[in-house]
């Protein structure tokens, strides 16, 4: 147990920068320093954001969880694994602001370290982790795979398109919960496997979206021009088509982050998420559920509140942005 604690502590110093970049990405996707008009674009983007009250509320909720996750070690004197056998299943108190779970672990600490796994770090093994949360990685990998498939099948068309699309259709026909169950039961519980599951489930939808965008953009003059210049097809796909398709892809990705968190919580609740004793919101609810009727609802309540508020915040933000940007157009 000592080893794990040390890893988490030593991990904290470096990754706040990574999170900041990410937050910028979400608010201001077009942010690009090399272009002259980027100040103007940034201000236009922010004004879109602040024009919608829902988006602001969403942003505040999301920022709360992101900062709690980043600063987790500073916000609680406990580690998420520290057990206090004398105080199991307690309500909120001065020592434990949100109470303790059935093993006497501090719920506030488990909650914010749980947010960390979702939003800030992807634990690969006991001591190795990547910046960027498990849910974010899931969406990112799905985006890479789905975008590539969509571009290739939309741009080349023909039998390649037919094969890829029929396969994705078959995947979409399979109930998502079944995919989750089988994938996770086969791969076992770990953060990397959660990323794989989210990727497999997310890829078909992204690929279809990108394909339909590609079919449209392929007919534009600038693509024709690039083809006449004799550009490599992959250059055309990734440098000509993809940048012009980014708007809908980004909005879709934001909604997918919300869904990835939803999926991660659900997997955890079914016992298919992160292996115990990791602080995982879904599995905390699953464990705490057993003690509700015995009179200690806190262990189930707080992670439920956490995941509910985070997904609602993300959706408010995405919806608000989408509505306002559509109004501007």
């Amino acid at each position, binding site marked *: 147990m000592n080893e794990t604690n040390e890893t988490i502590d030593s991990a904290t110093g470096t990754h706040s920068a990574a999170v900041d970049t990410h937050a910028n990405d979400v608010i201001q996707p077009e942010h690009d320093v090399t272009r002259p008009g980027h100040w103007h674009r940034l201000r236009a983007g922010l004004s879109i954001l602040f024009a919608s009250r829902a988006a602001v509320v969403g942003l505040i909720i999301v920022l709360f969880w992101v900062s709690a996750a980043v600063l987790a070690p500073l916000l609680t004197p406990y580690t998420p694994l520290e057990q206090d056998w004398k105080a199991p299943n307690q309500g909120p108190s001065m020592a434990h602001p949100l109470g303790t779970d059935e093993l006497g672990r501090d719920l506030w600490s488990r909650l914010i370290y749980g947010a960390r796994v979702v939003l800030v770090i992807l634990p690969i093994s006991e001591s190795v982790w990547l910046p960027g949360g498990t849910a974010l990685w899931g969406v990112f990998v799905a985006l890479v795979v789905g975008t590539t498939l969509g571009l290739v099948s939309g741009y080349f068309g023909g039998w390649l398109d037919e094969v890829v699309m029929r396969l994705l259709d*078959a995947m979409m026909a399979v109930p998502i919960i079944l995919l989750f169950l089988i*994938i996770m039961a086969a791969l076992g519980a770990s953060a990397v496997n959660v990323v794989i599951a989210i990727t497999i489930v997310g890829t078909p939808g992204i690929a279809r979206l990108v394909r339909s965008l590609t079919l449209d953009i392929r007919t534009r003059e600038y693509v024709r021009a690039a083809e006449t210049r004799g550009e490599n097809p992959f250059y055309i796909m990734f440098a000509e088509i993809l940048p012009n398709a980014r708007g809908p892809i980004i909005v879709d990705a934001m909604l997918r982050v919300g869904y990835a968190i939803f999926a991660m919580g659900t997997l955890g609740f079914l016992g298919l998420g992160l292996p115990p004793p990791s602080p995982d919101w*879904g599995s905390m609810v699953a464990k705490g559920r057993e003690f509700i*009727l015995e009179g200690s609802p806190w262990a189930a*309540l707080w992670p439920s509140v956490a995941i*509910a508020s985070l997904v609602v915040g993300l959706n408010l933000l995405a919806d608000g942005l989408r509505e306002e940007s559509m109004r501007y157009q």
Partner: protein
Amino acid sequence: MGKFIVRRLVLLLLTMLLVSMAVFLITEASPGNVARNVLGAFVTPEQEASFLAQLGLDKPVWQRYVHWLFGSDWKAARKIGLRLKRLVTEKGFVEWWAIDESGRPVRWKLQGDDLVAELRQPDGKTVRKIDNRRWESDPQGGWSFWGVDNANHAVRWQKGTDRKVWTFIMGSGWKQSSGGPEEYLPLKKGFIRGDPGESLRTGRPVGDSLYVRLRNSLVLAGIAFVIVMPLALFLGLLAGLKEGSIRDRVLSVGGMMFSVIPEFATGIFLILIVAVWWQLVPGATVFGEKAPWERPDMLILPVLTLTLIELGYVLRITRASMVEVMRSPYIRTAYLKGLPYWRIITKHAVRNALMAPITVIMLHVNWLMGGIVIVEVVFGYPGLGKYLLDSALYKDINALEAGAMILVIVAVGTQLVADIIYTIINPRIRYT
């Protein structure tokens, strides 16, 4: 249209085939096996090997897949040289018997070096007799025999080996016996002949337990569906009537919240508020032998949870559709003609606005199934979802495959129904 339906049905079968193969392969590729899951970690290697062999799990995966799909009785009948018959006894147990040359059902047993035939009489009793003439010499110079044992396997006995067998009996534990065979081939009819096999976890036929589970899940989903649809369509139309009004804001933000919060969180909130705080209804579902509708008070919370999730989704779709219709030129024209407001809404707007939601709802069944699995786990409801989850965790392949096939049929089937309904309500679309 007929051609379209046939094509889609073929696609459904193809999807089922692909999914069933994928389930087999993925389950196979993953670590652990059903023996460890059922028997616990303290099982000896001999017990584990014996258990796996009796379930036919020592065979290669493609062979097990073929047996699962097409059955294994035809193969066993060829090895034994006699016809095989599946009987259902008065107590409801399934028994496999070989039919001997004179047309009587027979099974065998190995006692020492003697083959003992058990002949089934018409009244269900058995008569035993020594049946050593059936031994056949094998290429290795010994004597062996393919027959049917009394636990629904086709087995190969080898004379003089007297193998030890470990049998695990649910509820009473291990039993060691001698006279074991060299090789097992569990007898089943195969999925496409209507026999999903036995659960590896409980030893009971999958079909029986699946029927009860499916019924329970349908009760839950059906009640939720009946409540959600009219309510969500009505509220969605109401919200979309005037875009941006207070009513619209409240309904759409509320709908969004309920539809994006994970089912388990909604379930926990409802349990805490309704069952623990107000103490109105039980917070868990315990039916025992009873059917769900005999305890309606226990159904309230699961139905409510499902309702809230679905309500938000359908409401948002309906609202978006209504908003679009209200912006369209023909509604403006209707206004300018001087038609009364309610006439415009009921005659012109609502009918067109309902088109999109009805198909989207059908496509959403795929998601609804996920919701049902979670709700069943939250409330301990004995439905299909929980069965599927347990089967997946135990690697109970027969149960998992059967459940998976049902889910695929429901998912693909509802999409087909959605497409057909769409052509009926929207005559502009024709499928060929």
